[in-house]
């Protein structure tokens, strides 16, 4: 008797099938590296040491705790003050994301600044490292939002049909017809968020605008399973619409959503970069890959401002896309995405 290949979509078998593809492993490696960089950004690049003994006093991880005693210090001042009994364990890059090295504005890569500095003398390496945070958090949060909206809208439209379907899909059409970038800058330009609100506004707006593709996909999947025997059976048993949607429809539409979410993540990272690049994104004291690239427009000779942040973005975008492709091939290679 011939054995059929294991096509069950249990989480474990899916994981095995995804990981079998070497590119997925590569992508997951890159993504873990990004995650570690984002979480440990303050340890990798900071204006205070990892550990320090100064004037007979021991500080552990001052880069995280930022003690009041060291408020007036940064790595350079500390290095100048160290006596023979003192010692300091410096982070990989001794510059914080907002440390201005006023003696070296727009300087090319050197021993002091391995990736150069921006126009106000901030270390590009430090800003690229800290930019991972914004990129990752904006990407993740906006994809969560857009998946939530897309799932809700798609399931309602597909399951209830009729007027609900018409209205929701018309709304999706409206959002889809306006070019994304224009819509995003219009909304952000109108909101004019400041400070920390800017990042929050950006990820909410990306999520609120980009759900249309996902909702169409979910709707099509729901239409496919709506008349299946098990949904009919659930209906026959007298389950409410909510129970049917949550227990029987949702699990069956989740896997294509996973693929779409992975590709959306790549899209959201690029959108964050582009918005910050255009000056509608993060405020100046928050490091972002896009806002570093922004400076190239005025200082075209500063190639290091173009190359390094962009390379970080390219790396992460291709990792999300690779992961999406591996997931798609493992779930259903015929999905048109």
């Amino acid at each position: 008797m011939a054995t059929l290949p294991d096509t069950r979509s249990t989480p474990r078998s899916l994981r095995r099938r995804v990981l079998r593809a070497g590119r997925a492993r590569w992508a997951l490696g890159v993504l873990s590296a990004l995650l570690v960089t984002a979480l440990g950004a303050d340890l990798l690049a900071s204006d205070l040491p990892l550990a320090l003994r100064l004037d007979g006093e021991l500080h552990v991880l001052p880069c995280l705790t930022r003690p009041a005693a060291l408020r007036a210090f940064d790595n350079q001042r500390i290095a100048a003050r160290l006596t023979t009994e003192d010692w300091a364990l410096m982070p990989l890059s001794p510059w914080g994301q907002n440390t201005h090295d006023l003696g070296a504005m727009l300087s090319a890569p050197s021993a002091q600044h391995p990736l150069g500095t921006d126009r106000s003398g901030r270390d590009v390496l430090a800003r690229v490292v800290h930019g991972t945070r914004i990129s990752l958090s904006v990407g993740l949060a906006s994809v969560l939002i857009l998946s939530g909206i897309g799932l809700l809208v798609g399931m309602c439209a597909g399951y209830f049909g009729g007027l609900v379907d018409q209205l929701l899909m018309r709304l999706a059409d409206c959002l889809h017809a306006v070019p994304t970038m224009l819509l995003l800058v219009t909304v952000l330009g109108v909101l004019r968020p400041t400070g920390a609100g800017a990042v929050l506004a950006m990820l909410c707006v990306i999520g609120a605008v980009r759900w249309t593709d996902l909702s169409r996909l979910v709707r099509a999947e729901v239409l496919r399973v709506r008349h299946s025997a098990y949904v009919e059976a659930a209906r026959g048993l007298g389950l409410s619409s909510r129970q049917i949607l949550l227990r029987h429809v949702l699990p069956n539409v989740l896997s294509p959503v996973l693929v779409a979410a992975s590709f959306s993540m790549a899209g959201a990272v690029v959108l964050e970069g582009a918005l910050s690049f255009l000056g509608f994104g993060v405020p100046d004291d928050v490091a972002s890959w896009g806002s570093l690239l922004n400076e190239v427009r005025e200082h075209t000779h500063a190639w290091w401002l173009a190359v390094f942040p962009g390379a970080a973005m390219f790396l992460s975008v291709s990792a999300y896309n690779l992961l999406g492709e591996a997931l798609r091939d493992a779930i259903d290679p015929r999905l048109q995405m």
Partner: protein
Amino acid sequence: MRSYVLRRCLSSIPTLLGITLLCFGLLRAASADPLLTKVSAPGRTTRVTSEALAQLRQLYDLDQPWYVQYLKLLRRLVTLDLGTSWRDGRLIRDVLGEALPVTLLLSASAILLAYVIAVPLGVYAAVRRESPIDRGISWLLFLLYSLPAFWFGSLLLSFLSSGQFLRCPSLPGGGCFPLQGWHSFQGFEQLSAWGKLRDVVWHMLLPVITLSYPALASISRFTRAGMLETLQLDFIRTARAKGLSERAVVFNHALRHSLLPVLTLLGLELPQLVSGSVVVEAVFGIRGLGLVALEAIRMPDYPLVISIVTLTAVLTLLGSLLADIAYALLDPRVRYGKE
């Protein structure tokens, strides 16, 4: 056929209404009195009396309830009487009339370039499927697909245009490509027709490449997938069986069959193309719709913003409408409703 086209046109009207309502609501929600932002715009030092403000309010219908304002906006959009820009009082129609051709030129060249390269590439990859060449093309397309356009544009600008690396001392600025604009600012009017063309091509080359490669990647992948599917169909086997050359099979039979969906991809690519052109125009300093829109949003110049958003939406809907109609015309199997 005619009824299909008619129905398809009618069905895009609610979408357009929705977009204008969305945009109107957004701008209304931004500030209860948009005029206050106009009179208190940065750089303005003159004080405005309350009478003058009331007059202005009347002029822009801001003393009316919101639905009257919305209906008047609709009437203005339909009659193309778009009013004046808040920034410099120019007619919005004139502003758009200058910016739209630039964006159209940029987008049309980009999409043309994308198709010209992408379709042969996709066909070639499909014919040589699973070969090292196919795999190489796949990888290349994947990389292009993941390459953020504004990064690529910035790299081109930094390495080719800045004059720091690639030098062309005979050209103004020292770089081999211009730093901004879609034509030279000085002396463009004096050039001959041929000279103008050369100048525009020289300015537009890098922006067009930057705008075209994302579309190129997706069109090429789509072509390959379509060709692979077609090449397995029965009529291809028949064509091979009757002794046609491989070239005739691929180009006359398979490509013809799978080109149709590829052409309709144009409708889907249009919004992304316009979206991309906002960024590309910003990178290369080209005053098209995107850059004008960015300036208008920064001002803020609400009448201009609403006009541009509506215009791009109309263009996008028109594009997908044309793609659908072309599909219905070319594919005899597509019939919607009764004829």
